[in-house]
């Protein structure tokens, strides 16, 4: 039987403080997982910390933003023939033992599984403005896809081979999470949302700050609106 190769992609920008714990937790969860940290032009010693832990790292020459970083990991996964890619944040809010729940969805035949903090109870708290933005985006996305996706900004996701190949070619750059859902959904990928537990960030700041929430919402809604009229070509040579 063919061994299913799994890779954990961790986009990281100045996360030297959080990464050791995150990596230790992943290794405790499953030692067979290949971990790759995408160092998105960090100005701290992220890359040294990761190398010291003997974890694979992709050093981007300059900061691309979360979208460009995740895509780098997906390109790596695609080139190296991984079957399943798990995207996990470097800030410690995603709990590695919850990866099981994502993988279950992939086993059920879904192309993309999104770990959601809103389906079940979790201790996740957020600012009011951000919550409103998340609700509106969820409503718009659900309307376009005809399927309810409650946690569009979750960066805790699993992708199968087909989704890896597709996303390594098409990936939005800033605030990419809600957009990828639309792009995937409209390109005929089967999406599933599963409830997962999440933690508050260990240290550092979220990529979406409160005062930027409005800009975030407008930018995402505009991008989603344009996505509806875009055509995405899928390359057929994946297996």
């Amino acid at each position: 039987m063919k061994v299913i190769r799994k890779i954990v992609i961790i986009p990281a920008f100045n996360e030297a403080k959080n990464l050791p714990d995150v990596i230790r937790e992943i290794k405790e969860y499953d030692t067979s997982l290949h971990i790759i940290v995408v160092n998105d032009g960090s100005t701290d010693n992220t890359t040294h910390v990761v190398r010291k832990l003997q974890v694979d790292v992709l050093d981007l020459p300059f900061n691309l933003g979360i979208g460009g970083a995740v895509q780098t990991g997906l390109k790596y996964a695609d080139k190296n023939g991984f079957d399943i890619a798990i995207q996990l944040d470097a800030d410690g809010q995603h709990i590695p033992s919850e990866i099981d729940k994502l993988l279950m969805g992939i086993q059920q035949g879904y192309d993309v599984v999104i770990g959601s903090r809103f389906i079940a109870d979790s201790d996740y708290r957020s600012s009011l403005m951000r919550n409103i933005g998340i609700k509106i985006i969820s409503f718009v996305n659900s309307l376009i896809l005809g399927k309810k996706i409650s946690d569009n900004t979750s960066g805790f996701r699993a992708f199968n081979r087909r989704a890896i190949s597709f996303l390594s070619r098409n990936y939005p750059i800033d605030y990419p999470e809600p957009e990828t859902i639309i792009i995937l959904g409209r390109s005929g990928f089967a999406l599933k949302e599963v409830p997962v537990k999440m933690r508050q960030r260990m240290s550092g700041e979220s990529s979406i700050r409160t005062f930027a929430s409005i800009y975030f919402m407008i930018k995402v809604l505009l991008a989603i609106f344009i996505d509806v009229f875009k055509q995405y070509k899928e390359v057929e040579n994946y297996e």
Partner: protein
Amino acid sequence: MNDRIQLIAILVSLVIAGTIFQLIRKKKLLEQYSLLWFFSAIVLMIFSVWRGLLDKMAGAMGIYYAPSALLVIIIFCGFLLFLDFSIVISKLTNQSKDLAQEVAILHNKLEKLENRTLETRENGINKNA
């Protein structure tokens, strides 16, 4: 328009066209990005040579004061140029992103290869000893 202003207009448009030509010749401006500039210079030249055209156009656009029409035309040309810049910048942004990603992946691959070569070499030395 009196003769003096027409002469100035023709000279200015000639200088603009000449500058663009010179920049391309010296390879400081790529042909693919110069088309719109040439287009703008030619439009400017046509209006400075053909006096009646501006009045006709202003009339057609319902503009009573002909120089205003000139402003509209200039703004339109500028708009086209700015739009073209944005398109070019977007393309370059995408290309530089792809390059950065490729660099990161290749760097990773190179490092692994170097480590492997180093290991085999060390093993070889150990065997020989």
